């Protein structure tokens, strides 16, 4: 079997797409057929399946759910960069934030935001930049907590040095204000770096999660997609406990809490639909 002769029939594709949609909420339409096919082909090769039908049955009936996770991993390449999913950040800054501030945080106590599964830190620093822009001139305080299970990415994140590719979406005024270009790379200024605390947390470790309390907003974008059904529900419950009443949870654009657990309220804002405690 080789890649050029491999293709999935329309019916097979529809069946796979429906299954992925049911499990994750991500819908791949016909336009994505080539994209999905390529990744399915790779997974078939890795698992030694010649026919799509056999692979699909293997995927469907694998009780450990591991193969499904691997396929999802292959389909959802996690490329992270500053100001990713701009509409949601806009919703956070312009709509959710004013509500949180009305509740008194920022004055009586610092606003606390958590980037859960922060990887190399782009999202956490983006949040710090947004909050510096929105709050600091008023003297409001805030903290950005950034956690990941992988301590290598955390070390990388703490350095605060990025390639051009990572900062391509940063508005030019912010790029000038908060970054220093050094030999073709971009170093964050201390004013941003000192606002973010990086540390290691496993989202499935309940003892660790019980220490995460009193957050006004949690960003956990494109992370839960790598967890199975059971783990996702456990993490959602932990997040519920980590949030203050009225706190917001931001998932990735293609993810939906509707596949995870029915415990948050759905809120419609101008720029996005957000789940709230």
């Amino acid at each position, binding site marked *: 079997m080789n890649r050029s002769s491999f293709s999935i029939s329309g019916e097979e594709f529809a069946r796979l797409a429906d299954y992925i949609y049911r499990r994750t909420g991500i819908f791949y339409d016909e336009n994505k057929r080539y994209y999905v096919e390529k990744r399915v082909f790779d997974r078939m090769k890795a698992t030694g399946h010649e026919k799509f039908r056999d692979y699909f049955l293997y995927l469907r009936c694998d009780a450990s759910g591991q193969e499904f996770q691997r396929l999802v991993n292959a389909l959802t390449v996690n490329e992270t960069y500053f100001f990713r999913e701009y509409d949601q950040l806009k919703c956070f800054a312009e709509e959710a934030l004013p509500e949180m501030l009305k509740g008194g945080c920022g004055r009586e106590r610092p606003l606390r935001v958590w980037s859960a599964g922060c990887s190399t830190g782009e999202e956490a620093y983006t949040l710090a930049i947004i909050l510096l822009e929105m709050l600091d001139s008023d003297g409001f305080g805030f903290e950005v907590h950034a956690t990941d299970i992988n301590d290598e990415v955390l070390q990388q994140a703490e350095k605060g040095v990025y390639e051009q590719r990572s900062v391509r979406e940063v508005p030019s005024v912010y790029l000038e204000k908060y970054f220093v270009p050094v030999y073709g790379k971009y170093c964050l200024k201390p004013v941003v770096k000192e606002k973010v605390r990086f540390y290691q947390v496993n989202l499935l470790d309940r003892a660790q999660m019980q220490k995460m309390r009193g957050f006004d907003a949690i960003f956990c974008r494109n992370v839960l997609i790598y967890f199975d059904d059971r783990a996702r529900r456990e993490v959602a419950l932990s997040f519920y406990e980590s949030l203050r009443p009225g706190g917001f949870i931001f998932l990735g654009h293609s993810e939906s809490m509707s596949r995870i657990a*029915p415990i948050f309220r759905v809120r419609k804002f101008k720029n996005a639909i957000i789940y709230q405690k």
Partner: protein
Amino acid sequence: MGKKVLVIDDSSTVRSYYRKILEANGFAVAEAINAYEGIEKALEEEFDLYLVDINMTKGTGIDFLREVRSNPELVAVPAAVISTESEEKDVELSLSAGANVHFIKPLKPETLLEICRILTGEVAADG
């Protein structure tokens, strides 16, 4: 532009069956797989009718109905429950949660169409 119907049912066969019948008769159809996806879609876009299943995981039809009936923007949209439950207590629960009608599956195409036409105001109920 035809009337817009949101189908909330966890069975893809049911969703595509309704879609086929309704689209052939001038309705526009959107789909959701459970209550919360239904709520997300109802908030994103205006619909003329909700067709709601009851038994769904991670948010049942009753959850959907209670949510839309407590939202001033969505409270007036008619909703038909179409579910397998046939006992009186099930019907009462649907109606008390805010359904306009409760029908029992499976539906013949002409019954489905009639429900949709009446509830979207395309024909009068006694017509």
